[in-house]
């Protein structure tokens, strides 16, 4: 399973962390996403940025996991945002209105500056 999805956490600034998502996000991504979020949200991070540039596939279960992550972020008073989505997944974000809670930016720089 781990081959299908590779997550990497970066800290481009004091207040922001980036989770690079490479591969497929579906129900099996649960543990990995939780672990990545824990790692990303350590000491003083206020913005968690999801990098979807490497996304190969995401289904509604995967979106469900993002919602779960969003709930945690809200509890931790963190901001969750995203960039690197294809038009197709942007549409899906819009359709599911998840884009109302997870702001989607065009690039990492945009996301960082907004934070």
């Amino acid at each position, binding site marked *: 399973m781990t081959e299908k999805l590779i997550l990497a956490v970066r800290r481009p600034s004091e207040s922001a962390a980036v989770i690079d998502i490479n591969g497929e996000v579906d129900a099996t991504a649960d543990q990995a996403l939780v672990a990545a979020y824990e790692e990303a949200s350590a000491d003083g991070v206020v913005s968690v940025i999801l990098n979807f540039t490497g996304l190969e596939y995401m289904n509604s279960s995967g979106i469900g996991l993002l919602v779960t992550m969003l709930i945690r972020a809200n509890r931790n008073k963190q901001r969750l945002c995203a960039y690197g989505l294809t038009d197709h997944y942007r549409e899906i974000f819009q359709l*599911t209105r998840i884009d109302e809670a997870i702001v989607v930016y065009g690039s990492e720089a945009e996301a960082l500056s907004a934070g």
Partner: protein
Amino acid sequence: MTTSLVVDRATTLEGPSLWLVRAGWFALAALVTAVAAASFDAFFGGDLGLVESQGALAVQPELARQLEERLLGAGVLKAGQIAVHVTGFVLFFVTGALLFLRKSRDWVATLSSATLLAAGAALFAPSSVLAQTRPDWEVAVHSLGVFDAGPEFWRSIAGVAIVLFAFLFPEGRFAAKWMRVVAVLFSAEVVLWAIFPGIAVFDVAEWPESLQVVWTLGLALAVVVAQVYRYFRVSSTHVRSQTRLVVISLFTVVAVFGLIWIIDPDLSQNFDLGLVVVTPRLQAIYDLNLLSLLTLAVVLFPVSIVVSVTRYRLWDMDLILNRALVYGTLTGVIGLALVVAAVIAGNLAESTLGPGFGVALTGMLMVGLFQPLRTRVQSQVDRRFYRQKYDADRTVDAFAERIRDQSDVAELERDLIDVVGETLSPSAVDLYLELVDEGASAEHDALADVYLDAGNSPIPLAAQSHAAAIALVTKGVDLVVPLVSHKELVGVLQLGPRLGDRAYSGLDHQLLRRLAESAAPVIRYAQLVEQQAEQAAERQRLQQELQLAESIQRDLLPKDLPQLEGWELAAHYQPAREVSGDLYDFIELPDGRWAVVVADVSGKGVPAAMVMATCRSMLRGVATASGTREPGRVLERVNDLLVPDTPESMFVTCLYAVVDPVSGVLSYANAGHNLPLIWSDEIREVKATGMPLGLMPGMKYEEVEVVIQPGESLLLYSDGLTEAHDLAGQMFGKPRLMTWIRDRRVTQGLLGDLMAELAEFTAPANGLEDDVTLVALRRLSAATGPAPPPGRVVVDEFTLSSEAGADRIASQRVGSVVGALIDDRQRERLETAVAEATLNAVEHGNKNRPELPVHFLVATAPGRLFVSITDTGHLEEVLESQSPDLEERLSGERSPRGWGLLLIENMVDEVRTIAGETHTTVELVVHLHG
């Protein structure tokens, strides 16, 4: 089959007794001749003014006077008297002499002859005239006997001869005990009287009147009753037909004599009742008629014997002499009767119409009636007694005509034997028919070549030196007539010696040859017809049995395929002949699994079918027995049971599989059978080793387990499929089978199409060389539901198990197959819709049970692209897409589910949900542009 005519010849004499009997006959003949000569001498030489002659036949003086005076002249009366005496005596004497000449070896014939001689003299030789005129002849005359009504007659030679004849004719035995008693009493009386002539007790003439009557009538009665009794109680039909006339004549003679003796024909003395005026003329007519009647009755006696003898060939008299005798007698009798009648009529005419008329009328009657009457009677006699005799042409023609349309062999046989028996009088006739009596006679078989050479000509066996011919002669066969048609021996007619002393004449041979020539082809043809009818009936019977066997065997095969949820089963069974050695079966096991069996008995036809039936029972028995559920064990047990019950040259190959319908686990073992094929996208053969059943005991069978995945199919087959040949002699073969199955994407109707493919391969005219049995199982991925509506073209069809990742696999596969039909954006959206629909199917429809299938069907129609996703769930309520109320979700009040349907609805142009009892299908529709 043989049919025979056999005559009892037990009365033949040999050696001294023969010579003694012959000597006795000669002595009697000498006595008869002497008495007759002397009598006729006295008769002609004496004064015949008043003609008084012999006993009861004597013309009473009064009658003679009346006749002379009133009716006839003295000359006519005298001539009539002489005619009666001479004709009567000659008739009896010649008949008796001829009988003796022809048959003196047979003592019954000699007795008959002696009776005729003595009776003839007693009746017709005017010996009473002799006794009166020359006293030295008296003893001789009375010893021979004078046939007068009275007790003394019975102790004369003629009387004794008649009594013996009546008791013994024709078999030469007493027919009943009482006859023996009567004969002994009678003989004792005669012998005692002869030895002690002076003692009154032994002399019937000295007895009281009443005793004399009893004695006379009693013996007369005994004579008649003996013959009548024999006729009705003892004789066979054959003998009865011989003696009928003799019985009648004996009865008539005795009855007439008895009548005359009792009523004493003197009307003027006894019957003057005052009512009838008895004139001398009336008395004369009465007396004359009585006399005529008596003469006729007496003459009947030798005639009856002759007719009996000639008609039934008991004794083979010379034909021409017989005819002359019979015709002569007839002529004499008719002439006599006519003379008497004419004279009476003439006399009556003269007395009423005047002189001259009488003579004229008498002459006219004589001339006018004699010849027609004689001809008529003679032709009657001819027709009755001589018709078939030696009339060879007519016999053969009639026979040929009769049998022309006859096709019943038995009937033909009887007819031929009858004709030969009637015309030739053989002692025995047998007919051996080649086809019917095959091997019935080794002798005839050995002589077959001789027969064929002879054609239809009779072969006298005495002239043959062949051992078989000699053997036949010792069996009493005289002559054989081969029946040959188209240079083929149809049968053999074998004849015993002729009845009578003569051998078969040239005429006989000619007759036999002609009979054989006309009979042989007809019998041959009839035999062939019969044989063919028998063969046809036999074939029909065998065919019916085979049809019955076929229906029994079909009953041994499963009538219906079992219904297994999530599986599709099919079977095809096609015997090469009516019955087959192939077998398939589905056996429900107590644990809910099913055994699937395909077996093939070596060989074909009935023997294979019988082993097949045995094998099926054993498989069923062992499969359902406790403790032997696993395929390897089952085959082991069945093998051990089958070994002693199977002929050495026969064996059974068998593939025995047990399938778990729920898990798809298939465990199987193989006894030398074709290996199963499993396929979905790719096809593979799964192996297992083991020896065929029924060869040797104690064999072990490898047991293998595979899982039939949803969407996968399994084929079990017998080698009649793969080893079928085309016209060029090429085998259908496994590679061709595997390629054909793989290339055929759609699984419905597989077996029917496969048989059609096989039929096309083997060429329609060829038929099947061997039995073909096919059993297919398909694990449904979720049923495809109804087949795609008409007009849709299937692009892809596949099944996935309900496991994580199925959504991704499905979306990718669908994406790849529809790539050419839609643009990338539409494709992406469709992929998402397929993925979401698959997720729903796996999680909701199939409740995440990996063994349950999800089936995909991708199809196109003009302007439309369809993707159907089917799961095995029963949809209780149609899910509605949920509004993406994120707040609720964020607060955890609602699960993230529901987004799937939302996405699906937004990603494709149309979504339809088709809910069934066991399946739910979601159909996605994309509108194609351009």
